[in-house]
């Protein structure tokens, strides 16, 4: 059964997808991370549309953990405010494991409304998957790619 919070789907442009995956490879051997900006719909929930994928610094500089640099978070918050959007999600890479939220990812998930994108670089090809995480529960969210 699909979890009720598996909607809406995440809609990325090809350019945003390339930014996210490129950022993850650039970060090797460490985990990489970034923030997703997009509009909120009626009721204040994300629509699934993304207007900007902003690579951020991983202040942990670690292959097994990430922490978005708070200065980049501040910059993203200001950019979102200027654009009339919000921070609606975060991506990070798993360098040697599946594209699935780890117990640490679940425990530290900050916002139940966010999209949590995980890029696995374990295999030859990158694997990009997206989730919502609420109250310790995980629901996969489909990712749709659009031209642009």
């Amino acid at each position, binding site marked *: 059964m699909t979890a009720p919070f598996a909607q809406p789907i995440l809609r990325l442009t090809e350019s945003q997808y390339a930014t996210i995956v490129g950022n993850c490879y650039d970060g090797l051997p460490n985990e990489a991370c970034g923030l997703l900006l997009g509009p909120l719909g009626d009721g204040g929930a994300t629509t699934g549309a993304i207007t900007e994928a902003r690579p951020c610094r991983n202040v942990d500089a670690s292959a097994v953990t990430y922490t978005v640099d*708070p200065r980049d978070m501040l910059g993203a918050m200001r950019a979102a405010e200027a654009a009339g959007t919000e921070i609606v999600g*975060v991506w990070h890479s798993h360098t040697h494991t599946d594209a699935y939220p780890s117990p*640490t990812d679940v425990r530290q*998930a900050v916002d139940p409304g966010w999209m949590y994108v995980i890029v696995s670089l374990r295999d030859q090809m990158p694997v990009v998957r997206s989730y919502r995480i609420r109250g310790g529960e995980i629901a996969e969210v489909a990712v749709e790619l659009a031209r642009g």
Partner: protein
Amino acid sequence: MAVEIKLPTVLRTQADGQASVAVEGATVGEVFTTLVERYPGLRGNLLDDAGSLHKFVNVYKDDDDIRYLDGLDTKLVDGDVLSILPAVAGGA
């Protein structure tokens, strides 16, 4: 003196849905005291049991992290902007 406090989306439900709130106070601690009196649901997100800044939250006074200023004793002047940011972290 009034300062503006910008709230991340995750905390707005605790503050009547507002993205920013104007609060009076001469220090960050004073402003937070007033803020959590007005919106008690924010307390556990901002402060720990000892009344210190919660470790999973970052607070910026304009461009500066208050942990590198004087923490909750950081002085404020009229028109300052405090941005409350959740720590975004995880790992494989």
